[in-house]
Structure formats: structure tokens, C-alpha cells
């Protein structure tokens, strides 16, 4: 078995390279078909013909398409993604600044989503076709069906404007902005490091609502998958054997059956974590969360294609990375693949 590992890894690396190349072609094509004139976006409406043509040549637009693609790949490989028209900063620097806010939100959300989804999925499987199963099924389908931007607004209306239980939009109260030294850009970590517990509390207050909503929507998927994995295990004979030899119901479920689905769950949670990025685009708009999603949408609306294409590339890379990690974890944890 061990001998097959190396060709497997080589094959996978090849597949990833091909996917990466495809990713580059895709972003390149999207960047080329845009209707807005990239030169006009830089030089403005009043530029003279001479200035226009200079920039046109600087951007390499007078070259054949294959050369343009070649330059694009070279830029990407040397991490030169150009500057954002809106902020005037290098795009990569912008993304590095906003990404921690989103990662913080998504991590908080996946903890809630997995913490909710896995026990519910197990409960649904154990009570298959009885009322807890039906209730859990409906609850998780609701989470899957709600337009998250709308739920976010309704939740703000109820929990912030109505009851005043949580903070409103943004990562912290206006009052605290700029008080915390930026080290990691993860606000919860930064404020804890600085010992500013007021800010920390404000940050928790602000993150709890959007994270819960994202967590609920991702728990739908986690619940469903946990339920079906669990059912597969519970129908097997070793479960009956364990019960017959006198092991308690709880021990059979959690020690034996659940122990066997852990590996599959890791994959599911990793994929759910990636798709949280998608929910984040919408929820960040609603909650004015200064993260990756908001950066992407605000650049979309003004047609800042450099920034948009880099964002799309980053999301693609994150997805490929997550797939790879879950694959590796699968190999490490599943004794059968050793």
C-alpha cells in the first residue's frame, strides 16, 4: 500500500497545477471581457490622446493576447497584482489588511456551525423517523433556505434595534476604533494581547450575531452530512454487537459509531468553512463588517477589476487549499489509507 503513496501525491500535485492554470485563464478571461475601459479607469475622462496611448502601451494592451496572458502569469507568479484604483494601494496589501476580519468571522461561525450541526446530526440519526429527526430536518432546511442578507437585517432589527442584546454593525463600537494597536489584525487577539478587555467585550458583542447567522446556515449542511454518515454506521453489525455485549447506548453511539465518522466530518467541516466565505460577502455588506467580502463588493460596484480579479483568485486558492488540507487530513487520520 505504502508504495502507492508517492505516485498518488505526484498525481494530485499535477491535478492541482492544472486547476491553478485553469484558474488563471478564467480570471484572465473575465478581466478581458469587461466592458469598462481599463485605461480610462486610470487616466480619467479628460486625459489627452498621448497620455492615453502611453498608459495603453504600459498596460501591454497593444500586444497580442497570448503575450498579455504571459505577462499576467508572470505578474501573478511574482506576486505583483497591481494597485487598486479605489484605495491606491497594492491590491495584495489591501487584501492582507481585510482578510483577518473575515477569517475571524468565519472561524467564529464554523465553531458555532460545527458545535450545533454535529450533535444535531447525531441526534437526528439516532432518532431516525421520529419527531426529533423531523424537527431537526426542518430546522436545518430553514437554515439552508434563508437569504442570509435578509435574515441578517431581521436579526439586527430584533436583537440590536429591538432588544439591544448585541452590538450593531462594524467590528466594534465606533468609540473604540483606533484604540487597539494593530498587530495581527484579528481584533479579538489584538485586544486580548493589549489587555484592553473593554474592546474585547465590544468585539465579541459585535461578532456574535453575524457569526451565529453564518454558523446556522453552515450547520444545515453539517447536520445533514453528519446524519447520513451516522446512519451508515448505526446500520452496521458492529453496533449491534456492541449493544449485545452490554455496552450502553451512549457509549456505543459516541465511542464506536461517532469515532468512525470523525474523519469524514473533518472533510465536511473544511468544505463548510470555505463556503462561509460566500456567505460572508453578503453578511459583511449587511453588518458593515470591514472584511474581504465588503472589499470585494465595493470594488465590484466601481469596476476596479485589478482588485476584483485578485479577490477571485484568492478565493479560488483558498478553496483549492482547503480541499488539499482535507485530503491530507483524510490520509493522516484514516487508518485504511495508511
Amino acid at each position, binding site marked *: 500500500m505504502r508504495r502507492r503513496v508517492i505516485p498518488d501525491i505526484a498525481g494530485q500535485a499535477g491535478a492541482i497545477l492544472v486547476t491553478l492554470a485553469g484558474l488563471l485563464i478564467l480570471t484572465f478571461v473575465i478581466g478581458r471581457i469587461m466592458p469598462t475601459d481599463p485605461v480610462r479607469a486610470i487616466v480619467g475622462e479628460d486625459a489627452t490622446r498621448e497620455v492615453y496611448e502611453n498608459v495603453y502601451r504600459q498596460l501591454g494592451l497593444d500586444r497580442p493576447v497570448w503575450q498579455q496572458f504571459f505577462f499576467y502569469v508572470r505578474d501573478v507568479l511574482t506576486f505583483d497584482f497591481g494597485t487598486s484604483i479605489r484605495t491606491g494601494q497594492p491590491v495584495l496589501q489591501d487584501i492582507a489588511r481585510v482578510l483577518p476580519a473575515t477569517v475571524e468571522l468565519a472561524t467564529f461561525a464554523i465553531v458555532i456551525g460545527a458545535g450545533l450541526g454535529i450533535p444535531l446530526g447525531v441526534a437526528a440519526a439516532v432518532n431516525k423517523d421520529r419527531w426529533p429527526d423531523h424537527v431537526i430536518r426542518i430546522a436545518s*432546511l430553514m437554515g439552508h433556505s*434563508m*437569504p442570509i442578507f435578509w435574515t441578517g437585517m431581521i436579526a439586527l432589527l430584533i436583537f440590536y434595534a429591538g432588544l439591544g442584546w448585541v452590538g450593531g454593525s462594524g467590528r466594534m463600537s465606533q468609540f473604540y476604533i483606533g484604540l487597539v494597536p494593530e498587530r495581527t489584525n484579528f481584533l479579538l487577539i489584538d485586544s486580548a494581547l493589549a489587555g484592553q478587555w473593554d474592546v474585547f467585550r465590544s468585539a465579541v458583542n459585535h461578532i456574535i450575531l453575524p457569526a451565529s447567522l453564518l454558523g446556522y446556515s453552515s450547520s444545515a449542511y453539517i447536520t445533514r452530512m453528519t446524519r447520513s454518515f451516522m446512519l451508515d454506521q448505526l446500520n452496521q453489525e458492529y453496533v449491534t454487537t456492541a449493544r449485545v455485549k452490554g455496552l450502553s447506548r451512549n457509549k456505543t453511539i459516541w465511542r464506536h459509531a461517532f469515532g468512525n465518522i470523525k474523519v469524514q466530518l473533518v472533510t465536511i467541516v473544511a468544505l463548510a468553512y470555505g*463556503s462561509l466565505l460566500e456567505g460572508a*460577502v453578503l453578511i459583511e455588506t449587511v453588518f458593515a463588517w470591514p472584511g474581504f467580502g465588503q472589499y470585494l463588493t465595493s470594488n*465590484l460596484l466601481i469596476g476596479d477589476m485589478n482588485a476584483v480579479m485578485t479577490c477571485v483568485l484568492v478565493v479560488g486558492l483558498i478553496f483549492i487549499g482547503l480541499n488539499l488540507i482535507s485530503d491530507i487530513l483524510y490520509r493522516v487520520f484514516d487508518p485504511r489509507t495508511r
Partner: protein
Amino acid sequence: MVTLPLGTARRRSLPHGLVSLGRIAAFLFRAPPSAFGLVVLALLILMAAFAPLLATHDPYVQDLQSTLQPPSGAHFFGTDELGRDIYSRIVHGSRITLTIIFVVSIVVGPIGLFIGTVAGYYGGRVDTVLMRLTDIFLSFPSLILSLAFVAALGPSLNNAIIAISLTAWPPIARLARAETMTFRSADYIAAARLQGASSARIIWKSIVPMCLPSVLIRLTLNMATVILTAAGLGFLGLGAQPPLPEWGAMIATGRRYMIDSWWLVTFPGVAILLVSLAFNLLGDGLRDALDPKQINKR
């Protein structure tokens, strides 16, 4: 010379399909959740068909005398910031939702079927290339890829539909490929090939019809996602443009007034939630209906 009864096979296959469709529908109606889904979708279709009759006001006419009115007998769901009747706008918005569903289905179905069956039938290098392409599209969350396409094409309802279609075909292609692989080595395909049928003819006449049922079901399952993506694009201002009564765009404009006038965002949101829930419940039921272990149980 023996005359082959060519017609019989075809005549027998259609009623058989109808019978199994009928059995699936009966199964769906027996379970309350999927019955609810079917009813909601039927209502949606009726609403779209009879929108001018059901609407109490013109969805586009502004009435600046009565802006931001709360729900009442005159305006069932209240009025928006320009005095337009929200109930009538939601009724007319159902046409946009149905259009999106319909157009995405008729674009995505054939593309997915074509790529999937060709990849599955030919196998080898063709398969590798086409499946790599599919994987690239699958490696993005659908909303973000649609966002990028809309940004490139310019925001409008048509472009949103194109963008959603471009991102929705990969799962269909995967499915059609898997189905094709199971039929590829079947005897009836070999028989067709021996008779001298071309590959194109075999794919079109013998493989595509076999893949059709599961592709249709998969399309239904995906519709909830399509609706949420379309609403999300509308909400971000990249889908249907005002004054079109698209539900997501209605929520976006209502957002500014939501603290004082809750009805502006609440009712369109409920409409989106109901339709996407209906598709999910229906899809859930369909999955059970087609699971041979389940269908005889209830």
C-alpha cells in the same frame, strides 16, 4: 422480411415514464414537507400566471402622497419609499423569479448534459480535459464566481442569469458523466454501435434520454441555490435593476428605511425564503422518492 414493430417501443416507454412520474408525485404528496413544497411552487406559478389579476395596484406607479404606509386594507403589505404597493410588487416579482428559474434550467441542463455525456462516452483524454474544466468551475463558491462574471459583463438581470448559468452547470455535468459511465458498456449501446450508429447519434438517441430524469431532479435540487444567488446579486445591486420588482433588489432599497418601516424588507424576504424552502423540501422529498429503499416504505 420481418417488419420490426418500431413504434411499440416508443409508445410503451412514454406511458411508463408518466406512470413513474405519477407514482413520484403521489409519494411526494404523502409526506407533509414535500407536499408543502409542491403547493408553494404551484402557488408561485399561479401567481406569476395571473399577476395582473392578483395585483391590486400597478407595481411601477408611484404615489408620493402615500409613501411608507404600514400594511392596511388598501395596501396589504404596505407601501415603499415611492408609494408603490409592496404586495403588487411581490406578485409581479414572482414572474422575474420564475423567469430566472426557467432560463437557468434550459441553459444549464443542455450544457451540463452535453459536457457530461461527451466526457463519459468518450472517456480518456476528452474526459480528463472536460472534467478538469468542470473542477475549475467547481473550485469557486457559486456566488463569488457569478459576482466576477457580472462585474465583467455589467450589472443587469440578463447578465445575472448568464452568470448564474455559467456557474451552475458543473454539478449537472458531473452527474451526467457518472450516469453515462454506467450505460457506456451496456449491450444496447454496443448493439447500436454494431448497426453503424455514429457516436453523436448514440449519445443523442441512447444516452441522453437515460440521463434526463436524474438531471431534471438535480436541477430541482439546485434551484434553491439559484434563487438565493439571484436574490443575493439583486441585493448587491448587480442583478435586476430598479424599478424592476425583483425581491432581492426590493430588500436592498428597503434597507435604508428598515428601522422605521419593517414591512419594506420583511415581505420580499419571506417570499424568497418560502420559494427556496419549497425547492429544498421538494428536493429532499425527491431524493427519498428515488431511493429504492424508501419508496415502498410509506
